[in-house]
């Protein structure tokens, strides 16, 4: 087996734990989404959401969840950009949550 195959095999063993982490992040992001939709501006919640999204962006690809990683990067960029309409950020988080649901359900 070459390096990439050995790596892929060993990553498989971490997948279960990673999915549990994703489920926890999903729960927090869902709460943030509800808050944003209600017009809330809870800074602490937004900071946590940014943190969760950033972590998904950095890790999803390593577990072959490439689309999830792309959506997280997009949401991350929107949160980091100034002058982005809240509606656009809400939509990006909704897409991310939908993909999180799909990944968690499929695995």
């Amino acid at each position, binding site marked *: 087996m070459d390096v990439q195959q*050995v790596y892929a095999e060993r990553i498989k063993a971490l997948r279960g*734990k990673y999915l549990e*982490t994703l489920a926890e992040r999903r729960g927090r992001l869902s709460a943030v989404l509800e808050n944003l939709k209600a017009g809330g501006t809870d800074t602490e919640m937004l900071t946590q959401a940014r*943190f969760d999204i*950033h972590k998904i962006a950095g*890790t999803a*690809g390593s577990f072959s969840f490439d689309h999830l990683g792309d959506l997280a990067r997009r949401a991350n960029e929107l949160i980091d950009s100034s002058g982005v309409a809240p509606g656009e950020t809400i939509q990006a988080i909704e897409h991310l949550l939908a993909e999180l649901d799909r990944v968690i359900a499929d695995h």
Partner: protein
Amino acid sequence: MKLMAVDDDPTILELLEVALNVSGFSNITMCEGAYEALQVLREAEQTYDAFLLDVQMPRMDGIELCNAIRALPPYRRTPIIMVTAMSDKKYVNNAFAAGANDYINKPFDVLELGVRLKNNLQLHTACQRLHEMERKISGGDTTDAVAATADFDRATTENYLRQLSRCGAPYAVAGFAIANVDELAAQLSPKQFECMLEEFSRVFANQMEGETYLCSYVGHGTFVCIFQGSHNRLDHFLRASIENSFNNFGWRADRSAPFAAIRMGDVIRCRKFREVPVDLALNHAIRTAQATGDATGLTVLSAEELLAS
């Protein structure tokens, strides 16, 4: 090889551990935060050979940590690789400005991570060996005193340029050379020579205050500058101004050393991702700065013009 990986995400630390293991590294210290990492460094009996740092971490981020590690004498030149999901150019600039040698985006590729780490380690080891040899050999070429680290700086510059290209940020590349470096090397002690080069960096920093750039020593009295923003400042006035300030600095305090003539090579402007191969741009900037004879240098070239030349 003793490595340290710092990331506040335990998942990333696990991924890094696996990736480094399969690449042949087994002695890895994992830290979940910058303060923990600094504490481990303070208490370590054996120094670390390389660091892998996340950028975005709570309390102290990876860029501040990189600065703090560089401030520790044993780690002034130890390879530091940023491993991060932050690809925005401001993070790239800050990381290299803090002393990082390389920058890898998450999610990382296991092969790329292993290769980049090994390259940085090999280059660092070779530089250290040359430095050691230079210390032992008396009466050698004075320029050897700093030549040992020049290859390492050049590699870091290439890494920076590649990362900048990935960000799609426009940049300009220019070389500055001390034209009479051999004459100066013959008259200055190794320590004075090293001091002179450090002072060049200081003069350059003063002239470029407020600008975003990376200036690295690439050997034989030559510096290469990666400059962001308008290239209009890279002109004859800047060259003359650097030359004038440089010759009034401390290294020439007693005025017994010869006047240092500063040459500036062509300025290469790149506007977009992979417009021109990184090594081609750097080589041209360095070669034209070091050119002797009547060639005047300082022609502003676009990427297309460089590729056609």
